[in-house]
C-alpha cells in the first residue's frame, strides 16, 4: 500500500491496462449515434405524452426536438473538436436525462396550466449546454484548476452564505431571488467545494495519511497533524454549519458524504470513514431531535400515513409512495399518471415519482442505471488518470452525482428521510441543470485526459503542444 500510494504520477502497476489499440479508439461516432438516440428517445417521450393526452402528436414536438437536437449537436461538436478522446457515454447520458426531464416537466405542466415550467427549464438547459461548451473549449487541462483551489473555496463559502440574506422559501433558506430569477447557490458551491477538496487533499495527502499522532494502538485510528487537517475540517464544518442554518438538509448530507469519501480516497484511512459515520450519526440524531424542521421530516419518514390517520389527508411523502405504487412494474404510460397529486414540489423534488408512476419500476430502474453509468464513467476516468488531483476531482464529481441521486431518490421512495434536492438533470431547477452540465463538462475533460495519456507519443491539442497534422494519420490507423 505504501508504494502504491507514493506513486501518484506513474501508472499504477496493479491497474490492468487494456491494449492500446482499444484505448485509442476515439469513439466519437458512437457518441454521435448515442446522442441522436437520446434526442430521438426524448422526442418520442414528448410525442407519447401528447398522444396519451390528446390523441395527436403535440404541435411543439418539432420545436422541442429541434431545440434539444441543436443543443446536443453543439455539445457533441465541441467534444469532437476539443476532447476527442473523451468517454463517449457521458454526453448521451446527460442529453437523455435532460431530455427526459424536460418531457416529464412538460407533462406535469399540462396539469398546471397557470404554471409552465418546461420553457424556463429549456432556457436553463441551453445555458447549461453553453457553459458545457465553454468549459470543454476553454479548459485545455484540468490540472489548471488546481491553482484556483483557494479562490474556489472562498467563492463556495460566499455562495453558501448568500441565501441567509434572503427570505426562506418553504422552510428552507436556500434561494437567492434577483429580478424574478431564483438561484440555488449551494448547487454551484458543491462543484467548487469538490474542486477545493481535491486540490487540498492532493497536495497534503501524504501528510494526512502518514504523519500525526497515533491516538489508539490501532493504526487505522491514527489522527493526522492538526495543522494539515485543521483547515479542511474547518471549511467542511463551515459549509455544513451554514447549510444546517439554512435548513438545506440534502446538501449538507451531500457535503458530508463528499468530504468523507474524498478524504478516504485520498488517505486510505478506514478510520476516517468510521469517525465520519460516527459524527454523522451523532449530528443526525442531535439535529433530528432538536431542529423542528428536521424532526418533522424524520417523523414523516417513519410514519408517512400519520396525517391520513389524523384525518388531514395524504401528505407529500404518502402521495409520492402512492404514485410509485400506482406505477407498478410497467407504469401507467407517459401522461397517464396522477403524480400531480403530490402538489407543489411535483416538478422539482418529486419528479422521480412521475417517472416511477408513468414508466413503472422498469423505467425507474433504467433511469437509475443511467445515473449509475454516469457515475461509473466518472470513477473510471478517475481510475485511469495519473495525477492525484484529477483522480480526486473525478471521484468527487462522480460521488456528488451518486450521493445526490441516492439522497433524493431514497427520500421520495421512503428509504431515508426526505430532504429537498433536485434530481440531477431530471428535476425542474435552473441552478441544478446548469451545475450538472458543468459537472459533465469536467468529467468529459477528465476522461479525455485519462484516455489520451495512453496514446503513444504526443497528441493533438495536448498542453505540451503538438502539431495538429498528425491527427489524420492516427485516425486512419484506429479506424
Amino acid at each position: 500500500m505504501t508504494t502504491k500510494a507514493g506513486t501518484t504520477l506513474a501508472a499504477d502497476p496493479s491497474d490492468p491496462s487494456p491494449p492500446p489499440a482499444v484505448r485509442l479508439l476515439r469513439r466519437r461516432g458512437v457518441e454521435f449515434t448515442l446522442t441522436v438516440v437520446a434526442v430521438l428517445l426524448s422526442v418520442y417521450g414528448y410525442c407519447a405524452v401528447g398522444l396519451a393526452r390528446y390523441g395527436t402528436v403535440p404541435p411543439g414536438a418539432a420545436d422541442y426536438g429541434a431545440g434539444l437536437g441543436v443543443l446536443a449537436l453543439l455539445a457533441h461538436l465541441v467534444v469532437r473538436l476539443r476532447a476527442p478522446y473523451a468517454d463517449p457515454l457521458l454526453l448521451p447520458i446527460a442529453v437523455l436525462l435532460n431530455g427526459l426531464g424536460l418531457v416529464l416537466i412538460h407533462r406535469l405542466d399540462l396539469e398546471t396550466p397557470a404554471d409552465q415550467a418546461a420553457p424556463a427549464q429549456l432556457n436553463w438547459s441551453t445555458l447549461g449546454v453553453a457553459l458545457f461548451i465553454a468549459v470543454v473549449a476553454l479548459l485545455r487541462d484540468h490540472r489548471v484548476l488546481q491553482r484556483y483551489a483557494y479562490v474556489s473555496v472562498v467563492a463556495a463559502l460566499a455562495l453558501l452564505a448568500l441565501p441567509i440574506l434572503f427570505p426562506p422559501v418553504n422552510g428552507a433558506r436556500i434561494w437567492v431571488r434577483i429580478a424574478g430569477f431564483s438561484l440555488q447557490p449551494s448547487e454551484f458551491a458543491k462543484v467548487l467545494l469538490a474542486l477545493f477538496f481535491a486540490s487540498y487533499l492532493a497536495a497534503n495527502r501524504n501528510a494526512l495519511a502518514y504523519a500525526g499522532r497515533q491516538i489508539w494502538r490501532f493504526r487505522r485510528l491514527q489522527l493526522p497533524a492538526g495543522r494539515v487537517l485543521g483547515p479542511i475540517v474547518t471549511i467542511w464544518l463551515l459549509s455544513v454549519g451554514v447549510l444546517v442554518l439554512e435548513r438545506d438538509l440534502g446538501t449538507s448530507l451531500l457535503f458530508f458524504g463528499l468530504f468523507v469519501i474524498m478524504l478516504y480516497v485520498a488517505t486510505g484511512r478506514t478510520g476516517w470513514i468510521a469517525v465520519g459515520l460516527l459524527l454523522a450519526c451523532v449530528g443526525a440524531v442531535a439535529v433530528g431531535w432538536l431542529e423542528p424542521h428536521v424532526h418533522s421530516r424524520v417523523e414523516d419518514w417513519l410514519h408517512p400515513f400519520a396525517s391520513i390517520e389524523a384525518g388531514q389527508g395524504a401528505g407529500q411523502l404518502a402521495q409520492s409512495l402512492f404514485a410509485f405504487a400506482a406505477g407498478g412494474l410497467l407504469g401507467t404510460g407517459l401522461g397517464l399518471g396522477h403524480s400531480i397529486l403530490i402538489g407543489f414540489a411535483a416538478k422539482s423534488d418529486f419528479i422521480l415519482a412521475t417517472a416511477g408512476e408513468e414508466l413503472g419500476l422498469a423505467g425507474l430502474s433504467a433511469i437509475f442505471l443511467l445515473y449509475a453509468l454516469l457515475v461509473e464513467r466518472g470513477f473510471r476516468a478517475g481510475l485511469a488518470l495519473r495525477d492525484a488531483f484529477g483522480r480526486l476531482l473525478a471521484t468527487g464529481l462522480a460521488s456528488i452525482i451518486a450521493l445526490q441521486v441516492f439522497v433524493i431518490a431514497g427520500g421520495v421512495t421512503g428509504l431515508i428521510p426526505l430532504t429537498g434536492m433536485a434530481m440531477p438533470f431530471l428535476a425542474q431547477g435552473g441552478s441544478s441543470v446548469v451545475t450538472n452540465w458543468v459537472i459533465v463538462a469536467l468529467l468529459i475533460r477528465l476522461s479525455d485526459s485519462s484516455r489520451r495519456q495512453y496514446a503513444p507519443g504526443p497528441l493533438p491539442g495536448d498542453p505540451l503542444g503538438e502539431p495538429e497534422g498528425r491527427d489524420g494519420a492516427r485516425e486512419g490507423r484506429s479506424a
Partner: protein
Amino acid sequence: MTTYIRRAAALCALLLLALLVNATRVQVLQSRAYDDNPANRRPEIARWGQPRGDIVVGGRPVTGSTDTGEQLRYERTYRDGPLYAPVTGFASQVYGTTFLEHAQDSVLDGSDPLLSFLPLWNDITRDRNAGGTVVTTIQEAAQRAAYLGLGTRRGAVAALEPATGRVLALVSRPSYDPGRLSGNGPEAAEAWARLNGDAGRPMLNRAVRQTYPPGSTFKVVTAAAALDAGVVTDLDAPTRSPDPYTLPGTTTSLANEVEGCANASLRYAFEWSCNTVFAKLGVDVGLGAMADTARAFGFNDPGLRIPFSVAPSSFDTEMDRAQLALSSIGQYDTRATPLQMALVTAAVANGGSVRAPYLVERTTTASGRTVAGSGTHPLRQAMNPTTARRLRDLMRGVVEDGTGANAALRHATVGGKTGTAQHGLGNSGTPFAWFIGWAQSDDAVEPQVAVAVVVEDAEAVRGDISGGGDAAPIAREVMRAVLKASDVP
C-alpha cells in the same frame, strides 16, 4: 489510491442496489397496500376518468356523461332527471351512488370483470373497460303517465307486468334532478343541503323505500286468505258479520264509511269496502293463516331486491285478536310499499302466482354484447288459482260497480281495489289514498299491467281524500299507457 477509488465506487453501487431494492418494495411488493389506502385518490380519478355507461329506458339512454376537463373528468348528466330519479338514483362524485346507479355501479363504471372478453388480460394491462349499459324494464309512457298523474301531490306509483315481474313504472313525488348532485363543486354541495333539508323529502324513493298502512287495499290479501282457507266459499252468501263490529276482547267497536255492511256478502263488502266484514274475516281465518298468506304475497321479506333493495313490507305475526282484526283491514302494524301492493294485485292478475319483480332487462358492454340477462325470476304461489279467479271477479266488480269506477278503461277489463288508510296518532293524520289494480285489453289473453298508487296529501281536506277519487285516475292513466303500448305490435 486505486483501491480506495474502487471501494468508493463499490459504495455507490451499494447505494444503487438499496434504491433498486426499495423501489421494488414500493412498486411491486407493497403496491397493493398503497393502492388500497383510502387517502389515495387514484381509484376515484380512474372511476370518473371515462364516461359512465348509460341507463336505458325504452331504447333511449336517460343518462349521459359530460367532460368537465377536471381531475374527476366525467360528470353524470340526466335526461328527465326528476322523472327517472326513483329508477336511476344519482351518481355523484361526492355523495356516492343510489338505486340503479348503485346496484349496477360496477357495470356502469366499467370495473365489472364480466365486461371484458379476457378478464385476466385487463388485470395485466390494468385497462378499465368502457362503462356498460343497463337496459331497464321501465316503459316510458307509463312512467310519464304516473309522474304527470301525481303532479304536485306527494305519493308514489309502482307498475308491473304480472306475468313476468318486469317493473314498468316506478315514480315518486316530489322528485329532484339527480344531475344537480353529479359534480364536486359548490353547486352540488348546495343542492345536497337543500334536498336534504326539504320537508317534502324529494330524495326519498316512496315507491320502494317508504312503507304506508295499506288500508283497504289489504283486503285483497284478507279475502285471498279467507277463500283459500275456506272460511268463505260463496262470494254472494251473507258473511254473518255485525255492523258495527266489536273488536274481540275489547269494547272498541269498528264502523263503516258505507251503508249495508251488516251481514253483507263478500262481493258487496269488497266492492264497497266494508271494514267490519274484513276485520271479522281476518279473525275467523286466524293469525297463522293470515300471516302465511301475507308472507306468500311478499310481506315480511327483508331480502327483496330489484336489484336495489326494497324496504320490507310488514304484517305482524304476533298479535291478539283485536289487533289481528285491525291488521286485516290494513291498519294497526300492517305496512306496505307501493311496489308490494303492486305485487299483491299482480298475483291476482297472474292466476295466484307472483313473480319476483325486476327492473333490469339486461346489461351489455358498451359495444352491445350482452353481459347478463334478466334471468329467470322465482315464482311464488300466493293463493290457489281458483281463489285468484274469484278475486279477479271481485276486483272487476270494484271498478264496474263499486268504489273504483274512476279506474275504468274502454276496450279493457280493469280490476281494482281502493283504500283510504288512516294513520297518525288516533288517526289524526290526513289519510293516504290508495288504489291497486290490473288491466287487460279485450284482445289480450291475460292482464298486462298491475299497478299500485298511493297519494299522501297533507294539503287536502281530510274528507276529500279517497282511493277512488285521488288514486284511481292516476292508476287508470298508467294502465291506459301500458295497454296502448302493448297494442302497438
